[in-house]
């Protein structure tokens, strides 16, 4: 109960930070997801207190919606790292779009392939870990891609991406273990909400001040053509050395 109320309070604080200084306009997808979290968890609290008989079913169904809406955070991190109109976005968006589609197909396949659903809980655990794993891979892929191209992160996106990635990956491992052995269930009940509260706390820290990603410095066409010329010259020299 304490964790529940703490989570709702932190979500409320995150919504306030997004509304302050109009941050919701900059981080629209994240704002939508945080609003969903606040509304969903508040409704869950009401159901828990006044309609306890329908609470388990309501919990798992709202969790299923949450799994899909988490993709908004993935999109926000990608969109902020490689902004629309930037050269990196033009170069990478198609390839990364295909990779994201393949990962989603993989998530669906692993979910449907898992036949031994012992209970309603197991169906949701399977859904959560399949998509949680894919979302963690997408976030990690975006972070690694940004590092490869030397894209710097501001405090906002860095905090959001790392906390979310950490939470979904821990959730994936945690619920897989809960499905492996029932003895892990008591830990699952505490570890997941605890890690969620930690993620919300990091998000609040990240959004406390507005610090977006610094703009990507782009080279002009002339510099790129000069680079291509030098690259081709180097390659042909290397070929001459290899095959004299």
């Amino acid at each position, binding site marked *: 109960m304490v964790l529940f109320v703490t989570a709702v309070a932190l979500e409320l604080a995150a919504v306030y930070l997004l509304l302050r*200084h109009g941050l919701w306009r900059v981080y629209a997808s994240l704002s939508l997801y945080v609003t969903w979290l606040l509304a969903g968890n508040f409704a869950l609290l009401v159901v828990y207190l006044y309609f306890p008989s329908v609470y388990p079913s309501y919990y798992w169904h709202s969790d299923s919606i949450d799994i899909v809406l988490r993709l908004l955070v993935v999109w926000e991190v990608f969109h902020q790292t490689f902004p629309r109109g930037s050269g990196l976005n033009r170069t990478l968006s198609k390839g990364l779009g295909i990779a994201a589609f393949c990962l989603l197909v993989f998530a669906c396949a692993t979910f449907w392939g898992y036949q031994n659903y012992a209970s309603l809980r197991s169906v949701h655990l399977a859904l959560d870990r399949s998509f949680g*794993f894919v979302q963690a891979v997408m976030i990690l892929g975006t972070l690694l891609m940004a590092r490869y191209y030397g894209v710097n*992160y501001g405090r906002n996106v860095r905090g959001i991406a790392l906390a979310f990635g950490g939470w979904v990956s821990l959730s*994936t*491992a945690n619920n897989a273990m809960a499905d492996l052995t029932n003895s892990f269930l008591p830990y699952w009940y505490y570890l997941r909400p605890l890690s969620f509260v930690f993620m919300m706390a990091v998000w609040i820290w990240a959004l406390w001040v507005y610090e977006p990603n*610094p703009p990507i410095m782009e080279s002009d066409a002339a510099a790129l053509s000069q680079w291509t010329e030098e690259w081709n010259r180097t390659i042909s020299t290397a070929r001459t050395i290899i095959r004299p």
Partner: protein
Amino acid sequence: MINVTLFAILGLVLFGSFIFIALQGGRKKGLPDSSAVRAVTQIINLEGSSFANARRLLDDTDYQTLCSNPDLRKLAEKLRRERKQLVLMWISMLQSDLITLWQFRRFLVQRGVPSSLKEELSTLQALAMSFALLVFIKLSIRTVGPFALPRATRQAGQLVDSMSKGAAVVLGRIPAAGWAEIERSWANSAA
């Protein structure tokens, strides 16, 4: 079973990767966004620091050439006096730029842009020291002339630049979409 075990292992590996990246640290702090620096110079009219010919103003070559000819000594003295007035005027403009930048920063913080007490105190310290240095340069120019401390005088412009970057760091903490509103409010408050 293999499927679930694999997810448990991969989940832990991914979690470890995020922890590793988080521990590696972020980008360098304290460097303002270049667009924020441009916006500050657009919002505030910095007359002193926009003057580009400080080097020429403080160059004594013309004065020395005139001095080398005894017939032109009077003209050399006149040039020196005029240069002295111009340099003093430029330093006064730099002082006024510093005050304007400090007022702009205070205006941003007053409008709710986040800043820590430590930052505010270090800004005040930088303002006081820069101002004191400019007063000292002014005194030295009045007593020994405009060509005595050319290097120190040239570097006076950099004091305003560093103060301007401080204001840009604060401005960069609000979304670029709000800068136009800041510019309007600043113009209204300055009027």
